[in-house]
């Protein structure tokens, strides 16, 4: 349990995550209110990383559920181990067991495949796990509706076994890249936080924290460049992940100064669309960058 908001800031910094006070307040409230934390923002601004760092701070197990269209109960919650069940039926029949006993056996926990959501609910450890539901906007409405039920009271019902309720609520982090809007009912159950692109000072701090060997001068140049490039309207503006990749690439290449040639050679680290690269090169030629 966190003592206060400042403690979260210090702890996150210890795990190389430079958080601002607003995010720390959200984490503090999410734990206090036992509500899921919904993080929205552009790709590469460090949403998923929040869950990873929290699990490290709390020393809890990180359970990750990657969302996609068509994700359903059998891949997110539970599934019976059918081949094992069939073999068991055959073995029990040979032994001459009664049908009722066979049914009881094959629908026991031994034959249950626990998927991420069930793992998060049914935890016996002292420290509840951290559940990361990543990129929820990729899933469909059906899954969102189902998730609503799970997140309301952290209990699920398996017809053959009964209701399983979480003894301790897991710390839930839901991320969304905002490719679509989430349903209002789901948002109401969460604490909302918008993760924006960082300011120059924050980005510099992130680069210096995450890449300890980097020279201050090149880190500054990289961050200044990134701040400038985000002003342009690209199809996909680079996030912090790109900044870090690029800074690391520059170290590998042994560059100590940022010049036009270096930028051109390493453009693939920053821009990931051909059109964006063409646009950028045009801008370079015109001297706009």
């Amino acid at each position: 349990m966190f003592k206060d908001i400042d403690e979260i800031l210090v702890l996150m910094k210890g795990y190389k995550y430079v958080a601002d006070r607003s995010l720390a307040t959200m984490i503090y409230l999410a734990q206090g209110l036992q509500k899921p934390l919904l993080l929205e923002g552009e790709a590469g601004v460090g949403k998923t990383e929040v869950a990873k760092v929290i699990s490290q701070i709390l020393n809890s197990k990180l359970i990750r559920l990657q969302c996609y269209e068509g994700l359903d109960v059998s891949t997110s919650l539970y599934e019976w181990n059918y081949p094992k069940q069939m073999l068991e039926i055959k073995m029990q029949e040979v032994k001459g067991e009664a049908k009722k006993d066979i049914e009881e056996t094959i629908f026991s926990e031994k034959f249950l495949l626990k998927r991420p959501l069930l793992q998060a609910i049914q935890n016996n450890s002292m420290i509840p796990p951290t559940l990361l539901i990543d990129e929820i906007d990729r899933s469909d409405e059906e899954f969102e509706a189902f998730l609503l039920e799970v997140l309301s009271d952290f209990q699920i019902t398996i017809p053959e076994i009964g209701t399983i309720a979480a003894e301790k609520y897991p710390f839930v982090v839901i991320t969304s890249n905002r490719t679509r809007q989430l349903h209002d009912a789901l948002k109401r159950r969460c604490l909302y936080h918008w993760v924006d692109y960082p300011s120059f000072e924050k980005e510099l701090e992130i680069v210096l924290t995450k890449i300890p060997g980097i020279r201050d001068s090149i880190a500054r140049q990289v961050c200044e460049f990134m701040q400038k490039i985000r002003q342009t309207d690209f199809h996909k503006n680079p996030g912090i992940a790109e900044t870090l990749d690029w800074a690391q690439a520059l170290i590998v290449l042994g560059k100590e100064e940022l010049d036009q040639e270096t930028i051109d050679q390493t453009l693939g680290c920053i821009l990931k669309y051909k059109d964006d690269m063409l646009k950028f090169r045009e801008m370079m030629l015109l001297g706009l960058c």
Partner: protein
Amino acid sequence: MNSTDAKNEPTPLSFHVARKESFIENILLFCRVLKSLRINITIGRVLDVFRSMELINISDKEVLYFTLRANLISEYFQIPIFDRVFQVFWLFFQQSHNCDDASGPQEGLEGIIEHLECFSDDWDRGQSEDHEDQMEGRKICLYSPVENLATKDFSQFTDEDVERIKEELSRIVKKIATKKSRRRHVDPKGQSLSLRHTLRKSMKYGGEIFELATTKKKIKKIKLIALADVSGSMDCYSNFFVQFIYGLQQRLRGVETFVFSTRLSRITDLLKTRSLDEALRVVSETVRHWSGGTNIGSCLQSFNNDYAPSILDPKSVLIIISDGWDRGDTGLLEKEMKRLKESCLGIIWLNPLLSNPNYQPLCKGIHAVMPYLSCFLPFYNLNSIRKLGRTLGGPLSSVQ
């Protein structure tokens, strides 16, 4: 945080913290003001605000701000509205503290509403601007000898042409109605085996597998929403697409239709008539802004504010029919397109100007919306209707 601690704090809020009732009233008032600005504040959210207050130091302005924001806001574009209301409230807290300790929340409400009125004016600016003077007399009719349906009015078409278009519409409807989802359901005609259901079925035979359960991909029901530009620059196409949408609405369930120029009007119900002529007559009588100027941005804003929450869902496909000639605020247009993109499966922009092979989307309006479109298609003749059909039948979200 208890009231004794709060009294020791020199911040302006400490007075309100000390008077617990007044503080609760202020927070409730804050929520009411947000609600009046179309932010969805539910009682559950308000209760969560008070639960959060137990956990934080409410005399810390920054923490109070983040706490209220986390609980009451769930869209990034609502943040500027929230910020403004919070600023006004904070000002009010300070003023009421400096002036008179006995000032009650009722006086506060008047003050806050007065402050926010200026703000609301700014907010609705986009909607009130009138652009009637623009695009006067502009007609962009295109002619090509091969595709001569392009410039023909529907009333000039032969019966054969109308039949061909009807056939094409039926084909589109069929494609939409049979679009496959990635979800599966049990179906005896399915190709893939479902062990889960097979085992369930075997139970009644004592575990012996007699029946195999198979699954098939589900039908993905998509909903169509059409927004048609009926401004002066689109005059020669307006009838064509009203007839097109009329045809779609007759054949598909749940199609919603809107027309816009300087204002937005919902014409779904007007098109629910028995004959096309009747529909055209009713629409032309009812929609007063036909052949006017264009302000796409503010029309999309009113669509987003008034209709989108109840109409759009992740299964809806929005079809916008417009040439993109817009004199409104491009920034607003872009912002509203972004909101739209996030609320539906995809946006298809049908542009009659694309009939010209040399056409380049250079006008500011079109340029601003391009990044938010799933498809940018021509719309002027039978071939373009076919192309739309293929697009709607395909995996829309991945088409650029």
